[in-house]
Structures are given as structure tokens and as C-alpha cells.
């Protein structure tokens, strides 16, 4: 996720790197170019200037940086491939497997058996998928709303016990989820929220809130109140200030917090099971027994479908933001 500040930082770093390159090897004329770069011109333009300014760049120095970047990206690719991509491919293969006895390296027979079984066995899976996504979206909206307001209170207002509240927002990190879910269950039984979808949504919010609050506190702190003050003196009412200045500035953080809350919600098994009590069946609660049992193909189908839907949700999210002009085009999850 990127923000204007990050962009400016990147530009400054670029300018510094370029000016170092120039200053170490070039004459006075080149240093002048470097100085102009350091005044904050866009990075692309700086590179052009650099090429125009110096016919023979000192490749040794520049190559040194490039080599390190390349080495870092190779390491990243290897780690990514072994830890994320390979397991995903394996799951996809499992979902298409009919027979894969141990110790064969490759499955004996491939078929769509598991897919047919999952999708024709009634509306159970699809309804669970729909419920999972609904709960996820509700959780991310509620959590971000609460986290944004909490962060505002914790960062911008001075009140007695502020530090206690600040600590309280990250408290659920410290308590094991099992302990804390049982506490919630007891409370929800009394409130009549146990075994209901709304109960599950609230419980998920409690799980996701510390993460979202941590992100929002940092973003709110970084944003400060300067732009809001500027908007106020330019004639913006509180509503307009929030709409045109505060929310757009906080948006990168809001998006991170929302995505994270959504992922925490859809991936949660224990709290869903305990609070939902079997009445609320999400993909995780349906899938789990299959993972434990022998039929990995079925579990594979669940995982693949679940992944596809999650990706679709995020893609839709990005498209909506692109439409709103919040994100630049072609910057999926990057900006």
C-alpha cells in the first residue's frame, strides 16, 4: 500500500542515490545536475537528466546496486516459490486427484470427482461460501470503522487513561485465542448472541480489531492534523473535511486494515465454531473435517474454490477503488 508520503520518500531516496553516484565520480558540472535532482524532481526525470548529463556513467558503482537488488529479488522469488506457490500447486493437484497412493511421486489418476462431489451435493458448500464472504465483509467494515475512530481518539485526543486504552486495544494479541473465545462464548450465551451469525461477526471483529487498530494508529499518527487544519481554514465543515481530506489521507491504512480484517475473518475456524456452535457454517468449519479425514481431494476443492472467491472479492474491491479514482490504474495491491 502506498501513500503520497511514501512516494515522496522514494523520490528523495532515489535523488540521494543518484546524487551520490554523480558526486563521487563526476566533475563540477555533474554535481550541478545532482543538486538539481535533489530539489525533488520526479525520479523518472532525474534518470533522464542523469543520462543527458553524463555520457559515461560509472558503471561499477551503479552495477553494485543492481547486483544487490537482483540477488535480493532472486532470494525473494525462491522463498515465495517454495513457501507459497508450491503448496498452492500441490493443493490444486490434490483437488484433481482421484487416486494418489503413498509413496508415488505423482498421482495415479486425475479426475474431476471431488469437484463434482462438492458442487452437486446440494447447496451446502455454496451457501457456506456466501456466508463466509458476507461475514468477512461485515467484519472488515465494522472493524475498520471502530479502529479508525479508536485510533483518532488515541492519537489526537488527550484524556485520562489514554495509555491504558491504547494498551487495551492490543490486549487480544496477548491472550491466547482459545482462552479468549471461551470468555466471549460465556458472555454471548448470556446476551443471546451465541449460535448466531451476528455473534460470529462480533467475535471476529474482536479478533481482528487489534490488528486493524495497530495499523490505523500508525497511519493516523503519520497523517497528523496539519492537513485537517488547512482544510478547516479553507472553509471545510467537519463533514467535508472528513470526506475530502481525512479519509483520502487515511485510505491506504484503511484498505490495509480492511483487507487484513477480511482475511482474519474468513480464515478463522476456532472462534467461528465456538460462537457459531454448528449453526453458522462457514467454509472453514465445513472444510476442517475433510482436512483431518482421508479425503484430501475434497479438502483441496474447498481450498481452491475458497481461494478463487477470495481473489475475486479483492479484485472487485480494487476495481471499485479504481473506478472511484482512489487507486491508479494497473496497480493491483500496489499503488
Amino acid at each position: 500500500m502506498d501513500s503520497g508520503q511514501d512516494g515522496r520518500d522514494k523520490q528523495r531516496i532515489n535523488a540521494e542515490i543518484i546524487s551520490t553516484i554523480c558526486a563521487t565520480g563526476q566533475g563540477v558540472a555533474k554535481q550541478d545536475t545532482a543538486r538539481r535532482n535533489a530539489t525533488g524532481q520526479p525520479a523518472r526525470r532525474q534518470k533522464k537528466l542523469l543520462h543527458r548529463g553524463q555520457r559515461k556513467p560509472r558503471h561499477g558503482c551503479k552495477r553494485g546496486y543492481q547486483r544487490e537488488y537482483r540477488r535480493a529479488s532472486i532470494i525473494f522469488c525462491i522463498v515465495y516459490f517454495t513457501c507459497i506457490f508450491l503448496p498452492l500447486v500441490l493443493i490444486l493437484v490434490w483437488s484433481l486427484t482421484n487416486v494418489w497412493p503413498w509413496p508415488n511421486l505423482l498421482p495415479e489418476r486425475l479426475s474431476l470427482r471431488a469437484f463434482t462431489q462438492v458442487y452437486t451435493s446440494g447447496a451446502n458448500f455454496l451457501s457456506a461460501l456466501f456466508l463466509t464472504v458476507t461475514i468477512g465483509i461485515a467484519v472488515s467494515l465494522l472493524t475498520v470503522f471502530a479502529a479508525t475512530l479508536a485510533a483518532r481518539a488515541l492519537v489526537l485526543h488527550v484524556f485520562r487513561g489514554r495509555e491504558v486504552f491504547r494498551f487495551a486495544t492490543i490486549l487480544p494479541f496477548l491472550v491466547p485465542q482459545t482462552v479468549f473465545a471461551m470468555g466471549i462464548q460465556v458472555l454471548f450465551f448470556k446476551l443471546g448472541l451465541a449460535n448466531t451469525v451476528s455473534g460470529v461477526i462480533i467475535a471476529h471483529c474482536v479478533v481482528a480489531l487489534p490488528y486493524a487498530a495497530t495499523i490505523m494508529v500508525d497511519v493516523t499518527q503519520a497523517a497528523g492534523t496539519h492537513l485537517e487544519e488547512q482544510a478547516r481554514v479553507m472553509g471545510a465543515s467537519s463533514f467535508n473535511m472528513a470526506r475530502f481530506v481525512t479519509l483520502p489521507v487515511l485510505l491506504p491504512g484503511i484498505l490495509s486494515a480492511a483487507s487484513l480484517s477480511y482475511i482474519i475473518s474468513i480464515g478463522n475456524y476456532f472462534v467461528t465454531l465456538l460462537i457459531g456452535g454448528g449453526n453458522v457454517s462457514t467454509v472453514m468449519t465445513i472444510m476442517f473435517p475433510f482436512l483431518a479425514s482421508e479425503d484430501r481431494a475434497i479438502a483441496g476443492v474447498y481450498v481452491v474454490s475458497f481461494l478463487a472467491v477470495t481473489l475475486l472479492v479483492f479484485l472487485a474491491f480494487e476495481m471499485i477503488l479504481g473506478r472511484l479514482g482512489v487507486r491508479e490504474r494497473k496497480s493491483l495491491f500496489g499503488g
Partner: protein
Amino acid sequence: MSLLVQNISLTLGKKRILRDVSFTLADGEFLSLLGASGAGKSTTLKVIAGLLEQDSGHLLLGGEMLDDVPPYQRKLAVVFQDIRLFPNMNVAENVAFALRMQGMGKTERLAKANEVLELVQLPGFGKRKVQEISGGQQQRVALARAIAANPRLLLLDEPFSGLDESLRDDMRLLVLQIHRQLDISTLMVTHDAYEALMMSDHIVYMTDGCITQDDLPEALYRCPQSLQVAACFGDCSVLAGQIEQGVFKLGAFMAPIADGLPDGPAQAIVRHQALHPNIKGEIELPVRQCIYHGDFYLAEVGLGEQTLTIRTDSLLRHDSPVRFSADPKQIFTFSQSNDPQNR
């Protein structure tokens, strides 16, 4: 529009930031609030803008009481030192922000924004991103944004201190030009005394939350009423000595004082221009060191443990004596017993 600031006091936490601040900004005037950092200048500006609420006192803008008007309805504009352009909008949208808040339609406000951008010498910059333009250009955009909606009062909070020296002069001229062209009452906060002298019709000097002097630029320079005001222009030596029968004395240094201050301990601000090296000069002191400054040399001469600085035309050797005469008009003496703040 004229601004009347009446007896403003403000305490933040347990610290009294402003004490009984009063001054008047006449219609179409350029007023500077001058003072060292922490003197309460920016706080005064924030009170006027409505970002801080005073504990007591009143603000009147063009006869209208501002005290209970929220900041967004005061129709003022502020340019802050740190520019504060909205990163989520392009240049034109930034400039048109106040017009948008007033409910002006898109085409109309963007046309107006481009008009104002031409006024600050940035034609055709409307569609650029604010991150893509240089610091000086950003400051111009901030200025354009401030004047786009015809504010009743323009407030500038150290608007040039983030800029390079070369850009600063250009910006000062641009601000003055816009101030005159639009005939807009302007209040500028600055700690740069020469900047205040150059730009203002009228200067208010603040020290520790109080107004020390409220005067024309010439009067502030020629007749400073306190040690801080006299010293704020720099290029001076501060000496602690004694007044004896109308003469300020410190070792071999003596200077007649203009007004009848009582005998006793006193401090004198001696501007560099006050001392003229002269073979027939009445004062002779040893040179401690001499530094090259381009058109002249600055010689530091010893006065016991204190130092006096003199401009000379040639390099003087260490420990060689220098003779000079003193011009009492450029020496400002303040009695310590009379002025408790100077202690």
C-alpha cells in the same frame, strides 16, 4: 478588511502563551508579527484563524465579531510554513478547494484555479500532481490556493523559511505583488527581521507572549524600545556595562546615551555600523581575531570578557590595537533595573 485584535490571552496546559495581545491591522495593510521562536506569533495566528480558542479577548474582522465563528466560516486563508498541499488532489483541485467548499461548480472553479495559477506564475500546472513539483512551486500553489476564494484576510505563517535563499526573494516579491494587486489585508508571521522590514507597512514585535513594540518598520529599526527588538536585526554586539551620568561605560568603551536613563547596570546593543575605525578615534582596543566577509572584515575586539565587533576595510593582526569612534545613533542602551524582561 481591517482586523482588530483586542486583549487576547491564552493558556495552554499550564503555560501562558499569550498575554493581553492587542493590535490593529488596517484595511489593505501588510502587517508582520515579528519575534523569536516561542514568542507566541504562530499561536496568535492560529487564534485569528480559529484553530485555537482564546481564553479572553476579542477578534473583530471588518467590524464583525469573530469570537464564536468556527474556523471554516471565517473566510480567511492561511499559508503555513510546511505548505500542506492535499496529496490526494492535483494542483488545480488544491487551488480550487476553498471554492469547492463554497459550492462552486467544477468547470467554473477549475477555470478560476487556472486563472489564479497564472497570477502566481504557474500557468499550465493545473493537472500536475503536487508531489511532482518543486518546493518553490509547491509554495506558489499554496499561495494560489489561499487567494483563490478572495479571503477577507490572508495569514502567512513563516511562508518563506522552508525555501532556498534565492527562491525566497522571488517569493517575497510575488507575495507583495499579489498583496497590492488584490488589495488584500495580509498578516505575516516571521522571525526574520529584515524580511519584516522589507515587506511590511507595519510591524508588531512579540516577546514571551506580549507585544513589545507596535510600529512602522523605520521606527522599529531606528528606535527599538527593547533589547530584543534592538538585537533582532542581528549584526550587533550585546554589551553589559554601567550607565554613569548619561554615558554607557564598559572598560575603555564609552558611548553617550540619547535619553536620560538612570545610573546603574545597563545593556547596550552596538550595531556593527555604529563603530568606525579611525586613527583619531577616541577608543582603542586590542583585536582578538579578524574574519573575512567579502566586502569587509569583521574584527572582534576584547572588552574584558566581552567582545565587540567592528567592520574594517583591511585584515587586522591578532593583538594589534585598533582605534575607532562610535556613532551614538546606532547604539541602543537599556537600563536593567527599568526593564525586568532584559535581565
